[in-house]
């Protein structure tokens, strides 16, 4: 093969993408929160989401 370095690079990319696919890696990120109290199950309204208080601009509609 005329481009062994490129072929090696390509093989590494394919191995990486296969591993990432298997592990469920994603290009999108979500906010990870630790130690959410178990009381959320009983009182879901007590949890304050990072994305709460959504305001949708509707001007012009």
């Amino acid at each position, binding site marked *: *093969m*005329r*481009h062994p370095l*490129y*072929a090696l*690079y*390509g*093989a590494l*990319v*394919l191995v*990486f*993408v*296969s591993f*990432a*696919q*298997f*592990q*469920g*890696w*994603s*290009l*999108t*990120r*979500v*906010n*990870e*929160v*630790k*130690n*959410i*109290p*178990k009381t*959320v*199950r009983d009182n*879901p*309204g007590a*949890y304050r*989401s*990072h*994305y*709460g208080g*959504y305001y*949708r601009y*509707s001007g012009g509609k």
Partner: protein
Amino acid sequence: MSQPAANCPNCGAAIQFRWSGAVQTTCEYCRAILVRRDLNLEKVGLIGDLPREVSPIQIGTEGVYRNKAFQVIGRILYEYEDGGWNEWHIIFNDGTSGWLSDAQLEYTVSFLAKPPEVLPPDVARARQFLWGGARYEVTSVTRAHYRGVAGELPFEYWDKKVVLFADLRTADARFGTIDYSDAAPLLFLGEAVEFDDLHLKNLRELAGAGTTPAGAKVSSLSCPSCGAPLTLSAAGHSLSVVCPQCHSILDARDPNLQVLETFEAKQNIKPIIPLGSRGKLEGAEFDAIGFQVRTTDSDDLPESWDEYLLFNPYKGYRYLTVYNGHWNYVKTLPAVPDRIPIGKKQGALFMGHKYVLYDTELATTTYVLGEFPWRVHVGEKNGIKDFIAVPKILSSESTEQETVWSLGEYMTGAQVWQAFHLPGSPPPARGIFANQPAPHAGQASSMWRVCLNLLSAMILLTILFYMFSGEETVFQHAYSFSPQAGTEASLVTDTFEVKGHPANVEVSIRTDLRNNWAYFNLALINEATGQGFDFGREVSYYTGSETEGSPNDSAIVPSVAPGRYYLRVEPEMAKNAQSMVYNLEIRRSVPSSGLFWLAAGLLLIPPILTTWRAASFEQGRWAQSNFGQRQ
């Protein structure tokens, strides 16, 4: 083949004929020219004094042409203003005969041919003939002086004086001569041949490259003008020699070295390859014997380049040119390439290869040193056209008298330094030269082929992942939400099991929204550890004359460890909106096309970069052409 024998009528020495068809021969002992008259030999003259022998060929030399062995049995020597040449009479082992011409160590083999048309009584340079499908062009018309004969000839030839010859060449190195030495012109057709291809044996021993040590003075003289010592490495071939001290250009054929002209030089230029150096190129040794600087006639920015004349007493002359550290190894061509259009550009066709016109310029010789096989002249102007097919350059140099074609091949300074064993390292090449090979030439296309293979492998991997990903629905439930109800909007789902290895989890939302929107605050929470993944999704769908958005959406939560999870959901809508029904579906190990698009992008970067670099190089190459960008 019979070999008749007789005795010389002049001295009685035995005359042995090598060829039964010989009409004329010479006596090796008394130098008598003998002509066969029936069964007798008649002396018709004596061989005069011949000039210094410089041809490696001699009577008795053997060789091979087109797989047929031949032997040299006779010779006619001609001289003209700029030199001389030999017509060697050769006989093949099948009894046929032909002519091996040696003109300044450029060789042709030709045979007497029946003219396809009546030959004109005279011709001029550039006249063309179409014979046997080939375009023969008259490249030179030479008025030569018959100088002498030796050995066996197929006709009587001893009383000539001035003879007119027209040499013709084709694009594929075929050769022709119209010989006006008889009342009716004769046509000889053949081809140019390389010295090595003739496999010659029994050659004359000559001094020079390939025979004597480098630096050995073949012929030592002194300048008649200033007394400086001079060396002639190609004595017998050289017509001019330049005194390095007083810049006198001397007649190398004159025993007294008559001064032809003296040129003014602002400074003495020291050739980077010292004259007298010996180098090995294409497997043969060559001596650097001449040096000249040539300058373009440009008012804006005249540019100069150096040319070295190389000499081997058997193989003839070669040239090394250098401009800004870019070298070319050049050989003159025994051909007239065809001019052809290549796209919108002009081009030339030589031996099946197309060359694109790159540059035209008028060049003036501005400095000379060493010796030359032509009448060198400072101030001489040549119209030059360069055609390129990287790494080769095909050039034509024209004066009013002639056009000479040459073919060069790019060399690096390091290759020249190695060939001539020069000390130190060569000056670095600056800029991009016309026929310089691109550093990434050919790499882009081969890299794209590797890329195609890698992309194919990636597509195969993608298909395999979609087929065997182990995608599994771990939760599904339908809910409803009414913003007007005023009750707590948030809820949690039942817990569900996420099994196996860490994998992504896709949360899909399908709603019955129509001309409305909803926002979902979502949190995927591990029941045991309290670890959560917090994210939000807006779903909006408007339809009418145009459609916008979608009633469905999904989100990927990456690398979710196995365990028991539940989903906290908090929908939001406009306070006066109608209620909606929505369905939540949670699946694990969902193939993600985004990763494969990322991989495709990473795989494409190297070939795109290589292609870009190659294109940039070509752009740089043509930016220096006076024909601008390649079209």
